[in-house]
């Protein structure tokens, strides 16, 4: 992987939980501005990689570099501050807040006013609150949810909740977006829309996007480069065509028995 410059680089990332090694020596270079994918069978350690990158887990070994800075072991909110945002495998919205409030919460990380300006009602504070509101409404418009702005977030449909989670992640002004199984539970129509949506936001917000996904149509359709993880170990990497015909990948997903059966 050469051009462009790597926005995210991991070196020998390893995660051990007691006796279990979830991820082992994971080294990747994610080029800036691309849409890339991380795939592998269930339990391969993909979300663990996400959790390490976002600071939720402290890697047992290895380092993570973002935009040239070593972010290994930083607290999650500091990682977000440096420009990485994510969505979750099981949607984690703020269920008691409205749709708009969810996005506004995402805007918090970039604000400049202090908390004590709130009770004082300073004009600069009020202006910032207003601009947060506007920015959040714009984000809702870009994901097509603006008419639900005052609805409780828990009342949205599943697909809409996923879009809201992405809008919230975008509100943190990220340079790098991690999407954890964004197409989960979607029908083919919705997956198509999702693919277009991902390409759209990448262009519009100048992002680098790394996705974890099981839906191969989405992965092959939208990713320019793919890494494959199996039992915590990177077993293959390359563009979609290379991955699809890679023997090791096929074995990992379908199992050796099937491959032998298919070949016979």
């Amino acid at each position: 992987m050469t051009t462009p410059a790597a926005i995210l680089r991991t070196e020998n990332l390893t995660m051990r939980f007691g006796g279990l090694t979830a991820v082992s020596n994971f080294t990747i270079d994610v080029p800036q501005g691309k849409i890339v994918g991380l795939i592998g069978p269930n339990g391969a350690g993909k979300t663990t990689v996400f959790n390490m990158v976002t600071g939720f887990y402290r890697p047992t070994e290895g380092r993570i570099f973002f935009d040239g800075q070593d972010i290994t072991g930083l607290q999650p909110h500091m990682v977000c501050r440096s420009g990485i945002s994510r969505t979750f495998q099981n949607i984690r919205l703020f269920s008691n807040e409205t749709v708009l409030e969810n996005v506004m919460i995402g805007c918090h990380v970039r604000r400049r006013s202090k908390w004590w300006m709130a009770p004082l009602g300073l004009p600069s504070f009020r202006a910032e609150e207003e601009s947060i509101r506007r920015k959040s409404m714009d984000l809702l418009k870009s994901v097509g949810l603006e008419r639900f702005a005052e609805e409780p977030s828990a009342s949205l449909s599943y697909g809409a909740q996923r879009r809201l989670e992405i809008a919230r992640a975008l509100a943190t002004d990220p340079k790098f977006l991690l999407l954890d199984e964004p197409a989960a539970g979607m029908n083919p129509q919705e997956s198509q829309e999702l693919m277009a949506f991902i390409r759209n936001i990448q262009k519009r917000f100048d992002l680098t996007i790394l996705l974890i996904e099981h839906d191969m149509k989405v992965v092959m359709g939208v990713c320019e480069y793919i890494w494959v993880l199996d039992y915590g170990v990177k077993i293959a990497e390359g563009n979609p065509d290379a991955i699809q015909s890679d023997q090791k990948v096929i074995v990992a997903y379908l199992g050796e028995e099937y491959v032998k059966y298919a070949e016979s």
Partner: protein
Amino acid sequence: MLGAYFVFFGIALFNLPWGVAVIGAILVSSFCGILVDRVAYKPLRSAPRISALISAIGVSFFIQNLAIVIFGGIPRPVARPAWLVNVIRVGDIRILPLAIVVPIVTLLLVLGLLWIVYRTKPGLAMRAISKDIETTRLMGVSVNKIIAFTFGLGSALAAASGIMWALRYPQIQPFMGLVPGLKAFIAAVLGGIGSIQGAVIGGMLLGLIEIMAVAFFPHLSGYRDAFAFVLLIVILLLKPTGLMGEKLEDKI
């Protein structure tokens, strides 16, 4: 507290022999525990955990205040069977039988509890519920019955300890269980939530530290009750899972 009061009334009202009163009191307390679970905790199984905690606090106050209304708030002395309090002389040593009986009974109760939890079906169900209640339900276990059984068991043990407490400090009043109950919780946290051996060790450690602290620093005796809480906070900061507890990870 209820255990102690039931013994008291068993003897005073029904003239039961002491042993029978004790067993009766434990059974009645156990029944009360099952009743409380059925009425105040079961409806909250699917609610956020804090709701059950608030309900428990409410029940605790309810029972204690009800006891004031029914039994009266004035502390009452309890009768103790002679064989427990008459000092035995062995040569120059004076032994209080109570001081031997209590640890032995405790040991027997703990062993009994360990046997139930680790060697019987209901015990296995209990442990399964604590790990994953939904799956346990799906495995065909009647979760409500097991939880009721657990409360019955727990209340019986609480009654037994209340009775032993009353033997040691022979005055009962409706709020006598408040501070020991709190310290019991602290002991459980100290030993590690989820570990019975831990709870026992925690309890003994806590009692020991309290007595020793007052013995070594007599001018701090006014702070005695605070020691348990200080210990609690220290443990929660250094090793929140307790001495022998299990570690719980968040999964996202």
